[in-house]
């Protein structure tokens, strides 16, 4: 009885260490890291979602100009942890990271090396590993400050775009954990989406423009949107996307229903031979031309066109990756997994081996669906005029 009374007295008296009131926190929805003007220092920007008191806005009339719902706080320090601590000092509220939607890094920073920034993200108990990351062409903090007009918060906007793309293939998005996993493997090169900010008549928009390729943790090159698509194809397990195939007057637009790719690495004496086997199911979305083709041969012709196109694209991207010396296809990792002994012997020269490797691509496409109509208008009229 006495114990109970004592205990119940103690409870309200003791401070509640971990309690933070909602109206005393700043909810961070985006973090950006840039190189500061002074060399060696880092500019940390945090995008905060502002919340206005409900009672004030419930009686307001329309027609009032709403101020931007986000706030960008910046600080220039030598490390990320210090930057965030500094921001905390200068604001009236505590900064709350777990709801962060996206991590942005400036290209200048990425070229120097990313490993040091990963550490805080992995160590701090509040930050989460499944946050999307992206590289920004230019200054990352500008993207945070952008007022896109589409979503309230540009951090959410960006992560939504990336999430939508990852419906097609998970390779389109890179979370911190994916990035770190590739770094740890020792041979693989991480690939991160690039975000670009464009301004047209006072309307700002952010979009994904290609992907950035890293070797170890330094940015070495880029893939354009097309090349990014073929990279994603080579990684397999694709559930969507579309591409145009054909040349000259005969063009066809295909929708990818599913696409898988098996990657094999074979050692050929001193060199390495890489084989990609692409297996895909396609649907046709638009046909232009192909008037000379007779109907029974249509599917075959289209399949051929598609296969050639896919092969060409994959080879192209492989070429670019090879040129950058970046093993973005996890080839080294697959060697390690199959035969760790052999990997040991190849490990140190992997970079060279990869740049000299030969690629063989074989594509097998299957068109299952032509849509509502079977013939093009041209084909229909041609067949009417007489075969």
């Amino acid at each position, binding site marked *: 009885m006495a114990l109970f009374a004592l205990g119940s007295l103690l409870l309200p008296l003791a401070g509640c260490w971990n309690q933070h009131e909602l109206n005393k926190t700043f909810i961070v929805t985006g973090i950006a890291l840039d190189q500061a003007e002074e060399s060696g220092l880092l500019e940390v920007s945090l995008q905060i979602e502002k919340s206005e008191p409900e009672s004030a806005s419930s009686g307001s009339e329309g027609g009032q100009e709403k101020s931007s719902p986000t706030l960008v706080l910046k600080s220039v320090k030598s490390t990320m942890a210090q930057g965030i601590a500094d921001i905390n000092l200068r604001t009236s509220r505590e900064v709350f990271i777990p709801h962060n939607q996206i991590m942005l890094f400036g290209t200048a920073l990425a070229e120097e090396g990313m490993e040091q920034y990963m550490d805080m993200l992995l160590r701090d*108990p509040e930050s989460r590993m499944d946050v999307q990351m992206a590289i920004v062409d230019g200054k990352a903090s500008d993207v945070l400050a952008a007022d896109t007009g589409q979503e309230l918060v540009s951090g959410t906007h960006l992560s939504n775009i990336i999430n939508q793309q990852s419906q097609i293939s998970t390779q389109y998005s890179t979370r911190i954990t994916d990035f770190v996993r590739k770094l740890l493997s020792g041979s693989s090169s991480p690939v991160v989406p690039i975000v670009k900010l464009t301004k047209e008549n006072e309307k700002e928009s952010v979009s994904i423009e290609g992907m950035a390729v890293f070797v170890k943790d330094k940015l070495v090159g880029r893939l354009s949107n097309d090349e990014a698509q073929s990279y994603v194809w080579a990684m397999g397990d694709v559930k969507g996307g579309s591409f145009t195939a054909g040349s000259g007057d005969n063009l066809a637009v295909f929708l990818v229903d599913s696409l898988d790719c098996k990657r094999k690495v074979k050692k050929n004496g001193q060199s390495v031979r890489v084989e990609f086997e692409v297996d895909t199911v396609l649907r046709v979305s638009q046909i232009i031309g192909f008037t000379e083709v007779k109907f029974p041969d249509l599917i075959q012709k289209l399949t051929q066109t598609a296969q050639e196109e896919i092969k060409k694209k994959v080879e192209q991207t492989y070429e670019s990756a090879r040129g950058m010396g970046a093993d973005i296809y996890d080839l080294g990792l697959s060697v390690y997994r199959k*035969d760790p002994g052999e990997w040991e012997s190849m490990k140190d020269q992997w970079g060279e081996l990869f740049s000299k490797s030969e690629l063989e691509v074989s594509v097998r496409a299957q068109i299952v669906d032509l849509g509502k109509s079977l013939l093009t208008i041209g084909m229909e009229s041609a067949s009417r005029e007489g075969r």
Partner: protein
Amino acid sequence: MRVDKEQISGVRFMFTIVLYLESSALLTGFLIPVTRHESWLTVLSGLIVSIPVIALFRAIMLMFPDMNLIQVLERVFGPVLGKVLGLSYIWWFLNLTSLNLRDLGDLTKIVILKDTPALVLMVLCIIVTSYAVRYGIKVVTWYSALFMTLGFAILAISVLLVMNQIRFENFLPVFSLPIKKYLHSTHMISTIPLGELMVIMMMTPNVRMSRKDATKYIFGGYFLGGATLLITIIRDIGVLGPTMGLFALPSLMTLRLVRLGEALSRMEILFAIALISQLAFKVMFLHYISVITIAQMFNVRDYKRISLVTGALVIAYGLTLYDNIVDHAVSAQVFAPVFWVIFEMLIPLIVFVTAKLRKLPEIRGT
């Protein structure tokens, strides 16, 4: 003199064993750095290697069905040596309880409440466990069936939810590490989560089961609990892959990656609470065992009175055990496997052999 006069059924005993082993799932963090992505192999081998050890416990339990461990020690080794060994077991059980309590406090601190002093978290837990211990074995194990099922459900749900993130390649390559590492890891597993099961020898007089049932219940519980450990490790390896070695609590990292649509994406605290409750159950059980051991050794008439005091002792000891989590991990990898073997395997083995040599349970017959 029997300290706790109540008895529980054999089925409930089995559920308690399963729950006890389930609770160790969170402590896999110290295992991983040794064998990394092949830890599932070592868990499997640890389970197999420990079977004779568990059989040893069962044999001792069946040889002296009415005596708990302390009484057995006195009977087999005589009053003097028996009491000395009994004292050392008191020390060891208190050690176990404090270690687990410390783990509980650290875990909660890291994941859920970062600024609260560990003392407060541990006091909250010990108050509740002391309350339960006062009422004896029946209350302490009352909910074992329920919590065990909840544990299974949580495990199943978490596996289902991260299924799309499990990558088979994370398990390859297999058998690529030197044998020494496998041996080390297997040894660690058989001493730390599995060998702790020796505390069931303190419960012998309180469980109502026949000879045949004993095998069924003890081994059934052992394999079920071991299976949950195995599934947890496999899930973690599959999801985290090479990043596993970075983290202090890999299970929690896996749970952090659980996503059920945008809305339910940060549910790890719910899972964490469930796992912490399981750990709290383990602490409660160990607290009970410590109290019973002390009561038995010092012939305390009413063990209820020492429940809270033992709890306070455990908290104090727990706070001073290690300075930080690195020391704890190092100790678990290096020191514990060697030292604990004495209490978990060596002494019971000697007890068994001596008893057989002295043809001890002569009154009952074998």
